């Protein structure tokens, strides 16, 4: 299968690989997927007092598209507010990376990872999480 240039770029030099201290209060961690499905993503965010994401890290077990989707996700959420990050849709990732239909689940997983990390941060800090944000994934 041919990968788009952007997928290859993220796969060959993934951005923001690594881990943040998952016990820190200002860090939210999301782990989504399952090994038997061939994809597991861990995405972490570090949030400052104003609610802005100042750092993001990821680790992914999965195909090139899954690695690229999570790498792109960390790039996009850095510098955004939690609300802005929450609004990122998997279809935007599909578009940016030109993912083929069989790889759409990778983008879905990346969107889930962002939301899961934000929820973890909100729970840790006693912030109500707004269920209205959990919209259905759009199938591209």
């Amino acid at each position, binding site marked *: *299968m041919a*990968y788009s240039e952007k997928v290859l770029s993220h*796969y060959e030099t*993934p951005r923001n*690989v690594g*881990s943040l201290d998952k016990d820190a209060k200002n860090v939210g961690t999301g*782990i*989504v*997927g*399952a*090994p*038997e*499905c*061939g*994809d*597991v*993503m*861990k995405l972490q965010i570090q949030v400052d007092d104003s609610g802005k994401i100042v750092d993001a890290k990821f*680790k*992914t*077990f*999965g*195909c*090139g598209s*899954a*690695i690229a989707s999570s790498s792109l996700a960390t790039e996009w959420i850095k510098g955004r507010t939690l609300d802005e990050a929450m609004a990122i849709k998997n279809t935007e990732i599909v578009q940016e990376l030109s993912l083929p239909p*069989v790889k759409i*689940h990778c983008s*879905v*997983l990346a969107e*889930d990872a962002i939301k899961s990390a934000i929820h973890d941060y909100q729970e840790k800090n006693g912030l109500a999480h707004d269920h209205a944000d959990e919209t259905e994934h759009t199938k591209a």
Partner: protein
Amino acid sequence: MALKLPIYMDHNATTPVDPRVLEAMLPYFTEKFGNAASRNHPFGWEAEDGVKLARKQVGDLIGADPKEVIWTSGSTESNNLAIKGVADMYKDKGRHIITAIHEHKATLDPCKRLAKMGYDITWLEPREDGLIYADQVAEAIREDTILVTIMWANNELGTINELPEIGKVCKEKGVLLHTDATQAVGKIPVDVNSAGVDLLSGSAHKIYGPKGAGFLYVRRRKPRVRLTPIIDGGGHERGMRSGTLNVTGIIGLGKACELCRLEMAEESARLSKLRDKLDQGITSQLEHAVINGHPDRRIPQTTNISFPYVEGESMMMAIKEIAVSSGSACTSASLEPSYVLKALGLGDEIAHSSIRFGLGRFTTEEEVDYTIDKVVTAVKKLLELSPLYEMVLEGIDINAIEWGAH
């Protein structure tokens, strides 16, 4: 000498034609173009002579009489003819067939079709080392068993099933034994008599011959095996396989068998040394890498290695300069891990990240060194990226986690 990329490490899938094989074939495309079944002119006789020599070359490699060699288009056809042909010919004697769950699809699917037609199939499961043992076969044989079909060497693992012991069991019980020897012929000594084999499938393109040519060995004495043909027509091949002979392909198959017979000892010593170097080079640098299947009872040029915590498709991407076969079919729409590796009891996450390396006649030590280096670098990079590996390093049991479905 500069290394030429990409490197071909998939010789269990197919092999290049040996130049000496091609040379033997060429005259049969042009000046010796006759139909081997034309009995009344020299064009036919010439082709028939070539075919006769090829029959002997195949027979010599597997210890068979030339008359026991039936030409086919390849092992898939040979397996179909052996399994369906025996099933139909002996149906009044019984309708029970024994095979194994990690056979090639060309055995599994004919058996499944027979099952639909009312035959009873016993599916043996390999032990953890990937082998089928004679005692398993002995236990499964019944009064109404007409055929045991167990491959000689497994195509994904390279493991060698317990032959000749399985043959001995079948002889004692008076049951016919078919073996798909596609991966064994030409790689390790194969002798139909000492192994007690009644039917044996082989293919030219796995042994540096052309694609589209194969054979089925059919025993003529003690016992004389009879088959219902699948292809009816001019009565070629003792009526078992009609159709004008693929003379060029047959000449190539014969020559390929002759070269294997003459060079096997030397070639297998060289390749098993290189294969062991590959195994050693990878497993000594990657502590989690595991060799799948029996470590010693394997054909000399094949190894299958799992890389836990690393996903198969990203692995293939990272070593794209090396042509190998992955345990998972991730590149297709289905995300099914290999049924052969699952038969060994490997978890999905490990079967997803397994690679078969198949060395061959023209593989060099430089290519093996390059492969070791590339694989080790790729796996280390992907382990850095792997959240599963991070959990393992933290002492978390990833099998104990309740993973969400998606």
